[in-house]
């Protein structure tokens, strides 16, 4: 490092689950940027920190990989970045290889490959506490001598572990030299033939590990092993998984109730204040009937979304998620998938987009494509407002457990449909050139890093709020305008009747035009227009209904009713109840199976490289949703339940 004013670039490399992100966060703190590597849809995380000598370092967190012989997009990016082949990215000045001290034999081959690139390397020996508990006797000094690089023992998950981090930062600056030198080792394992090289690396690593990471007690049964004895047992694994899902959804309903009521109250108070403070007119109507009704209708579900992200993050960080994937492997095999698809599909329950991008980890091209095509059928958080509202209307006054059970049933319906679709798609999509099989690492159970978890939840919540403040706000204002204009003239019957005024608005006209199409599903024009609007963003469905029913309010008392009360009281023009149980079930089924998210279609097109396929998915899912909702409603009608 020549000059403290210069910035130096350091790459962070390692296997997945080794603690790279934790180390990255510990080093860079809040000084982070997230973007994409040029030309590829692979996330690039970079951050900055200063060494004790005042040298500024740009740290780039590369995607986790098992080797530099790439078999996925992520691994290709790591490989290219380390060779300076990524457009717009300079060759790193140094590489920090993060290795798991408790499994050195598995992690060192990647380090050897990085050394072969002749880049300056520092090894961060992470999870030394885990190694100690596993009975591994480490000798970092010997490791450093044999490889000719600095080896720093760290515990990245310890918030106050300044010792390891300080030494790591110090290693990035030799006191008496201006730059870190490449490794001093002569790379004794090098061979010309690729296969011989791989074998030679393996042998070198085994010999080195026997000296530098001796395993003393093979019979030690760790806590993880004892827990796996239960979780990986087919008799217990399944019931525990189902129970876990029940607890998650029960918590969704019960824990979120208080904050949701509070948010509802806040927006209600703001609406009342605006109503009383501003003169009557279009601006006041826009604020109360458009902005507040629309935003409030969406933001009230923020607590539920945060709780769902919390539980998903908890399962990932603790190590339980991979056990769940193992348990699901057998079931997914019946659908033509493997346990590898479980993690992306579970992520899709938070949002389809990260789930679809997570499918990159699936080695099989056919399985990856199937997973991407069925991922939108995993009920995402955007559907939660619709499900919650419909369930409350369907089962007013029942316990949280009953509602949780219905919610689990809804999620299972989506999953079942997806697995059946996967089975059918498997017969239509060409096989892989090389057969791929399921293999998954089961990391040791770890106490979750709650600081990191809450930061992730905060980040996702901010994204949700940004979306609410931009896309949903914009659509809400548009919807308000469509429902307000054209305004009835003075003296016309619609001027005294808000329902008639709504029918004559642009939205009403559109709704009346599509009503013949949606009526067989049990929807009137108001519900139909809300469904159509929700194709832009699902959250808009409830916002739209809130705006529509707010616009219909004849007096202040009616305006003060909650949306749920308004929907429960809503009727057809002939006085029949609108939201009957079959209509509600029809709506639920429609929302389970329709792809109502344009951003998802954009990401699908990008990941599969085909707009035709993405469009086919969008239209196919829409058609299926319509047919399913039609069958549910009409069957219920025939049986006398409508």
């Amino acid at each position, binding site marked *: 490092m020549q000059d403290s004013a210069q910035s130096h670039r350091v790459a962070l490399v390692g296997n997945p689950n080794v603690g790279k992100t934790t180390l990255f966060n510990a080093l860079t703190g809040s000084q982070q940027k997230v973007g994409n590597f040029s030309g590829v849809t692979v996330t690039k995380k970079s951050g900055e920190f200063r060494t004790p000598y005042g040298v500024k370092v740009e740290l780039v967190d590369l995607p986790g990989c098992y080797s530099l012989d790439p078999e996925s997009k992520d691994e290709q990016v790591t490989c290219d970045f380390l060779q300076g082949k990524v457009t717009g990215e300079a060759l790193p000045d140094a590489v920090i290889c993060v290795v798991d001290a408790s499994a050195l034999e598995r992690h060192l081959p990647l380090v050897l490959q990085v050394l072969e690139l002749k880049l300056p390397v520092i090894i961060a020996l992470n999870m030394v506490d885990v190694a100690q508990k596993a009975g591994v006797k480490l000798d970092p000094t010997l490791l450093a001598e044999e490889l000719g690089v600095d080896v720093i023992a760290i515990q990245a998950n310890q918030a106050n572990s300044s010792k390891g981090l300080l030494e790591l930062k110090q290693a990035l600056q030799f006191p008496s030299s201006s730059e870190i030198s490449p490794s001093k080792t002569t790379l004794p394992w090098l061979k010309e033939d690729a296969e011989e090289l791989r074998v030679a690396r393996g042998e070198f690593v085994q010999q080195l590990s026997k000296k530098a990471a001796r395993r003393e007690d093979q019979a030690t049964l760790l806590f993880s092993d004892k827990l796996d004895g239960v979780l990986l047992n087919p008799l217990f694994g399944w019931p525990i998984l189902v129970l876990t899902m029940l607890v998650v959804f029960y918590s969704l309903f019960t824990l979120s109730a208080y904050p949701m009521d509070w948010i509802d109250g806040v927006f209600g108070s703001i609406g009342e204040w605006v109503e009383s403070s501003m003169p009557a007119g279009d601006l006041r109507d826009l604020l109360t009937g458009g902005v507040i009704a629309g935003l409030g209708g969406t933001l009230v579900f923020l607590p539920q979304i945060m709780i769902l992200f919390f539980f998903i993050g908890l399962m990932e960080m603790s190590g339980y998620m991979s056990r769940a994937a193992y348990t699901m492997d057998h079931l997914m095999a019946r659908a033509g998938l493997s346990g590898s698809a479980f993690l992306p599909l579970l992520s899709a329950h938070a949002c389809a987009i990260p789930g679809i991008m997570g499918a990159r980890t699936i080695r099989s091209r056919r399985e990856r494509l199937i997973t991407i095509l069925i991922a939108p059928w995993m009920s995402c958080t955007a559907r939660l407002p619709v499900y919650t509202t419909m369930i409350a209307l369907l089962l007013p006054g029942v316990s949280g457990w009953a509602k949780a059970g219905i919610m689990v049933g809804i999620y299972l319906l989506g999953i079942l449909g997806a697995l059946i679709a996967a089975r059918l798609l498997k017969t239509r999509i060409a096989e892989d050139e090389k057969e791929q099989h399921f*293999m998954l690492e089961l990391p040791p159970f770890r106490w979750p890093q709650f600081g990191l978890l809450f930061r992730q939840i905060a980040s996702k919540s901010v994204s949700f709020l940004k979306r609410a403040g931009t896309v949903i706000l914009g659509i809400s204002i548009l919807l308000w305008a469509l429902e307000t204009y054209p305004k009835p003239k003075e003296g016309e019957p619609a001027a005294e009747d808000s329902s008639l005024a709504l029918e004559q608005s642009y939205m009403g006209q559109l709704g009346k035009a599509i009503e013949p199409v949606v009526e067989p599903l049990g929807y009137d024009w108001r519900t139909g227009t809300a469904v159509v609007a929700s194709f832009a963003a699902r959250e808009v469905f409830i916002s739209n209904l809130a705006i529509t029913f707010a616009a219909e309010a004849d007096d202040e008392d009616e305006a003060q009713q909650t949306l749920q009360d308004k929907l429960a009281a809503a009727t057809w023009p002939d006085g029949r109840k609108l939201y009957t149980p079959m209509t509600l079930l029809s709506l639920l089924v429609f929302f389970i199976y329709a792809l109502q998210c344009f951003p998802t279609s954009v990401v699908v097109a990008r990941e599969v490289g085909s707009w035709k396929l993405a469009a086919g998915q969008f239209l196919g899912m829409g058609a299926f949703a319509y047919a399913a909702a039609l069958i549910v409603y009409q069957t219920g009608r025939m049986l006398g339940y409508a």
Partner: protein
Amino acid sequence: MAITPTTLLSETTHTLSKAEVGIHCMIQNVDGSSKKQLQDMGFMKGVEVKKLNCGRTIVCMVSGVKLAVNRKLADQVIVHTH
């Protein structure tokens, strides 16, 4: 070395999928279409592996890492036990 009943009984070579649960084995060879994938995950000649359970997906311990491995992959790993 002359083959005797004792010799036959003292060394057993088979695939990882057929290995006994709970016994430490040594990887003798990795051969098949998924050789690279297996080697990247630590299945190398001379490495010790311990099978932890049976089933469609086998759980085993190799190089200090617990892995769930499909049976068809386990068929490509040849191990021997003493």
